[in-house]
């Protein structure tokens, strides 16, 4: 067997070990870190399975943003989780049954990795062989994501917006405390070196985000990934320089608007093609030459996705830290 097989097996083994370790440890902080590792490993696995775009997203969203969000909740949490008072045998039974059913299901699965599987036969070949003529982008994942199945992606952008609305509705209030903290000394004052390094790094990160946004047609990348990277840069800034400083640079009100604007851009592209007499999200209608239309459509749509994702991630992080940064007023420890 090949080296790829080896990598595959080792990664899957490590994933299983990590999952068990998460189950075993009672230290919540360690569990969160291990979940980060789990994401990291699964993203590596995605690369081995040729899913570079997915790996990109999992790295940015799963290992990055998700872990950061979990961590920002930590101040609330007791470090150790309580041992559960009653044993739950029922859970074990349910899981065993479900697992047995799944294993039973694998018995008739088409062989792993074979070209003759039904999954490789019916719908997918058209994407691989004709998308170049129909959409005109080398990255097939982007073509399918933004054009063939563009409506899914629209729905997904709305999901993100919904989450943002939900977090705001749940945590976005209690303004008085936030204002009270306006003039306090920001967190992480004492980490001079980190702050200087980060100051140095934030501009390249932002440039990288733009590169990912607009290079998504040709390589791995696109709106989600770019949005997440952009948000990560802002989050880095917020963590080091404090929420109140960050709020002055990136005003909350505008970010709220941007979250809505991203979805509206996406929808507007769809409606524009409807007004031009075609179906919703049919980018052919956007220009005289269908291929140009597809390019314009995908560019705009990815932009909308990027804006919403970045804005919502920032909103969520702001809201969490606004709620939880009880130490924002700590004096620096010399």
């Amino acid at each position: 067997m090949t080296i790829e097989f080896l990598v595959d097996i080792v990664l899957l083994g490590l994933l299983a070990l990590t999952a068990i370790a998460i189950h075993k440890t009672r230290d919540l902080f360690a569990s969160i870190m291990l979940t980060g590792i789990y994401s990291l490993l699964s993203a590596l696995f995605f690369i081995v399975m040729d899913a570079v775009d997915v790996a990109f997203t999992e790295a940015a969203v799963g290992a990055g943003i998700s872990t950061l969000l979990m961590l920002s909740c930590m101040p609330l949490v007791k470090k150790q989780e309580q041992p559960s008072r009653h044993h739950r045998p029922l859970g074990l039974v349910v899981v065993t049954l479900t697992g047995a059913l799944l294993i039973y299901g694998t018995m008739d699965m088409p062989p792993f990795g074979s070209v003759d599987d039904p999954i490789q036969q019916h719908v997918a070949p058209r994407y691989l062989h004709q998308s170049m003529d129909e959409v005109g982008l080398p990255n097939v994942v982007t073509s399918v994501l933004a054009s063939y199945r563009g409506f899914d992606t629209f729905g997904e952008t709305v999901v993100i917006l919904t989450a943002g609305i939900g977090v705001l509705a749940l945590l976005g209030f209690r303004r008085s405390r936030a204002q009270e903290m306006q003039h306090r000394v920001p967190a992480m004052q004492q980490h001079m070196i980190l702050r200087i390094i980060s100051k140095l790094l934030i501009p390249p990160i932002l440039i990288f985000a733009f590169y990912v946004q607009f290079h998504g047609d040709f390589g791995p990348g696109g709106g989600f990934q770019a949005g997440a990277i952009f948000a990560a840069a802002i989050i880095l800034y917020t963590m080091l320089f404090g929420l109140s400083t960050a709020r002055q640079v990136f005003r909350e009100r505008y970010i709220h608007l941007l979250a809505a604007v991203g979805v509206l851009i996406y929808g507007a592209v769809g409606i524009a093609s409807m007004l031009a007499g075609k179906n919703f999200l049919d980018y052919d209608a956007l220009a005289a030459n269908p291929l140009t239309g597809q390019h314009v459509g995908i560019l705009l749509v990815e932009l909308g996705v990027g804006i919403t994702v970045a804005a919502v991630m920032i909103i969520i992080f702001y809201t969490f830290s606004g709620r939880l940064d009880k130490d924002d007023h700590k004096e620096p420890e010399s």
Partner: protein
Amino acid sequence: MSYLLQYNYWIVMVLMMIGFYIVISHGNLVKKLLGLSIFQTSVFILYISMGKVEGGTAPILDEGIVLYSNPLPHVLILTAIVVGIATTALGLALVVRISESYGSIEEDDIQKMDNEQC
């Protein structure tokens, strides 16, 4: 013999079940969310495994390459990852509010307080 080649799927199933078990067996609300994210990530691995073609490469068209892996599962999972983070964020927001109003993030404690209130 052909069953043995499904090793990939088998391990994925085990991963899924570990995640699922964490969700239902732990009483800590944050831990439950962690379990949920592991469960979902494992399902993503299942999808991506389906799309793999032996000897294929990433579905970014280039000259001189004939065999590509299936791009459709990748697209679906991109969507699902974003759905996953959305759920996690909302779940965490709920946990924050629960801990503020109940003073605990353990299922047992909360259930007890609710029973007393009733």
